[in-house]
């Protein structure tokens, strides 16, 4: 139960156990987890009575559910993509795999940092988000500025929303997503083929709720 500087640091740790990758989470998620009633109640004068009673049992069950592993028998399939399509997400007009307007908006808006209120709104209201940012810079953008924007986007969203941000340079995208389990996603994010299938299925629907709010 340790803290690491980044996801990469944790995954490179000699004792990293992929089977437990579902408990690799942003520190904000752990801060929320350790803010549940089980932990706040320790200051009570009757803590042992509380912890061994029905309220303590309910708090413990809440904790167990929060940290439960994904069910291994359900894979990312069309069902998961269908679940994603039902999520209340805004669609950017004209967005498609070829449309760079979303990325243009992102580049223009993100360096100013995401307003805290907006980020908190995402965190509280959004059930899922995928932001796809091509690794190749737009023609009119300095390559280094593009790289820094990608990094800053990952950092900002991860810090502000608690979502685990992944920078998958090899695939050409920065993908930011979490809370997928709440939407019916029961697969392993590391399961790349399934992940890609889900992303492709959902991409036309999702493009980016965050940008719709920022625009």
């Amino acid at each position, binding site marked *: 139960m*340790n803290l*690491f500087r980044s996801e990469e*640091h944790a995954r490179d740790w000699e004792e990293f156990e992929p089977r437990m990758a579902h408990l690799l989470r942003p520190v904000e998620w*752990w801060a929320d987890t350790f*803010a549940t009633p089980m932990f706040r109640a320790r200051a009570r004068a*009757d803590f*042992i009575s509380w912890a061994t009673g029905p309220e303590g049992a309910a708090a413990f069950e809440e904790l167990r559910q929060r940290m439960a592993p994904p069910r291994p028998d359900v894979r990312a399939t069309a069902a998961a993509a269908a679940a994603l399509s039902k999520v209340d997400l805004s669609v950017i007009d004209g967005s498609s795999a070829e449309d760079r307007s979303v990325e243009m908006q992102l580049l223009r808006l993100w360096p100013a940092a995401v307003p805290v209120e907006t980020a908190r709104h995402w965190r509280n209201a959004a059930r899922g988000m995928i932001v796809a940012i091509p690794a190749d810079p737009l023609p009119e953008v300095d390559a280094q500025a593009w790289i820094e924007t990608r990094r800053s986007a990952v950092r900002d969203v991860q810090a502000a929303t608690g979502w685990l941000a992944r920078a998958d340079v090899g695939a050409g995208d920065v993908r930011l997503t979490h809370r997928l389990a709440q939407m019916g996603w029961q697969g392993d994010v590391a399961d790349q083929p399934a992940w890609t299938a889900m992303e492709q299925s959902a991409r036309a629907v999702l493009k980016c709720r965050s940008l719709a709010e920022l625009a």
Partner: protein
Amino acid sequence: MAAEAIDPDQLALTELDAVYAAIMSEVVATGVAPHYAELARSLDVEPLRAKALVTRIIELTPGWLHPGTDYIASFPPFNNQPTQYRVSVDGEQRWFAQCGFEALACRWLFPGRNVTVDAACLLGGEPLRIEMRDEDITMIDPPTMVGYTRSPVGGDAANRPFR
């Protein structure tokens, strides 16, 4: 004088509440968990009873005694034995957290005060810092910081989910 054995199941919850609160109060105030003999004096009970109460509390919570001793080693969210998770309150470093996750729960014991966790990353040893005050996490450095456990949490050891 021969001491009578104490059945842990017969210890009253109200008494366990009081002992738990006394231990927590002492750790919050000093950074150190008291020995049962010290508790016996402050609670005005026989040392053997204080020992039984401490043992029972440890059984009911995710803390532990140092193996082979009667010394409280861990009393979450704190640790009596130093760990890499140093906890400061309003700039004074006096406490250690049981683990990186429990470090995040220390703030509930210090309402209205600035709680800082300083640690070293297990990979590379570079510094980590988290600053908190009540509901707010005011700083995470670096902002990419993550938490991870390779041990099952909330598993079959139902009463000790965080070991």
